[in-house]
């Protein structure tokens, strides 16, 4: 992987690394990609499976139930009386 691609990935994933970490991780990733490239020797079929077993794929019916969930939703939120604050966009 080129340095520019690696830097772009760090930006996209919002991962920041120190200089040493960056060197180590960049080298590791190139080793892993060589390991991954082994699969190119496999002659691909178009037979895909997204789940290892057949899944019905049923979706739940939409139901409108008043569960009074506000308290639950804010269980792990900071305790502000009428609002939750977040970072600037």
């Amino acid at each position, binding site marked *: 992987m080129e340095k520019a691609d690696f830097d772009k990935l760090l930006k996209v994933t919002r991962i920041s690394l120190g200089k040493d970490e960056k060197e180590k991780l960049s080298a590791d990733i190139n080793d892993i990609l060589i*390991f991954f490239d082994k699969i190119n020797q496999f002659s691909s079929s178009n037979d895909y499976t997204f789940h290892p077993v057949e899944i019905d794929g049923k979706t739940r019916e939409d139901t409108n139930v008043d569960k009074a969930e506000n308290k639950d939703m804010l269980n792990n939120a900071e305790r502000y009386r009428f609002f939750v604050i977040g970072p600037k966009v």
Partner: protein
Amino acid sequence: MKEEFLYVDKEGYSKLVNHLENRNSELNAFNFIDKTEKEGKIISVKDNICVQGIPATASSKVLSGYVPNFNATVVDRLQKNGFAVVGKTNMDEFGFGSFGINSDKIAHNPFDQRYVAGGSSSGSAIATAIIKNHISIAESTGGSISTPASFCGVVGLTPTYGAISRYGLIDYANSLDKIGVMGRNSESLKYVMNIVSGQDEKDTTSVSNTLEEVRKDKLYVIDNFTKNINQTVLDRFEELLSRFSSDGYKIEHVKIDNLDYSLPAYYILSMAEASTNLAKYQGFKYGHKLKQFSMGYNEFFTEARKDFGMEAKRRIILGTFIRGKSFKQKYYEKALSIRAEIIKRMKSFLKEGFIISPTAPILTPKIDEVKDITPVEEYSMDMLTIPPNLCGFPHISFPYNYEKGLPLGAQLITDHFNDYALLDFVSHWEEGFKYRFAEEIS
């Protein structure tokens, strides 16, 4: 052998907690021990499965402080049947590891603390090895139940993909994650499986198929599955095969084409899926919260995500790369087709018999020996547990020998939904082999 569980009343519970806190300071089996007075049949739960009122961190600083206000379905079903959760067990961060060392608190093998406990469900295996008649609810993506079960000398069942609801599980890789169980004998596992398996309306990927018990008298040894394993492990395994042969099982050596691709295919799929799952941890909604709201959007989230460990960062970056538009076909789609191919090939044997192998290709390593190995070397250690996990086949690891005081585990694989046949097989094994456990805390 009959199912047995450690039942404690409220007074006994406090004593148990004290004992566990003492041992935990050395072994790091638990991330959290629940001191709330309770009574029931004692179980522990891996720290990536939600239990109402007890923190769930998946051993990640990103989730520190997160306390679920709901139970995972598996926990709900067990509590309704008289089980009580004593604590949340240590693990490699988000399940990323094979040795139990990718955690703030390195897990130690209860037989000898200089050695690894295995991962990622390290704490569940330790808890099962030290607590009398214990059951632990664990989770496997690529071998996270079998490997620690083998290194700690307990029985670990990874069920068919979809057999147990994953509602309340902190995701690692959705097409691979499976909740499973560890215990001290097959009958106890069967009792628990009867309670926790079955479709759940809260998890649309759980299946309604009935789990079966179709016995097989043929054991397949996949020669290209076992070609790179340690000689001592291989010698002990050959002795085990001789024993099964004299018990009437027919042993057949075969080769499965394309099995070598399973390791890279697994890591491609798991990293791709992990990178999307970990995108939601931004220091705002779950767990650890960054409070510098004066920061801009990008700065804020980059700062919050500094809390991921090195292996998590590696997998996020690689997974994101693999999912890129120009590489999707080269990596992700190819890995999907490899999975389909390996399922087809393994199934052709599993219709006729079980596949058996050692669980781990090496003897239990010392912690110092694995701290500095490269990621590719670490991933290669999963070579025996990856194929059944990639393909969603149920498999079980059970102790079959002890080498220099440390247990050795064997892995048995069967076809989808034939989970109870594995427990039946191990139940027969237990009639002639006595397990040694590290401790008997009660």
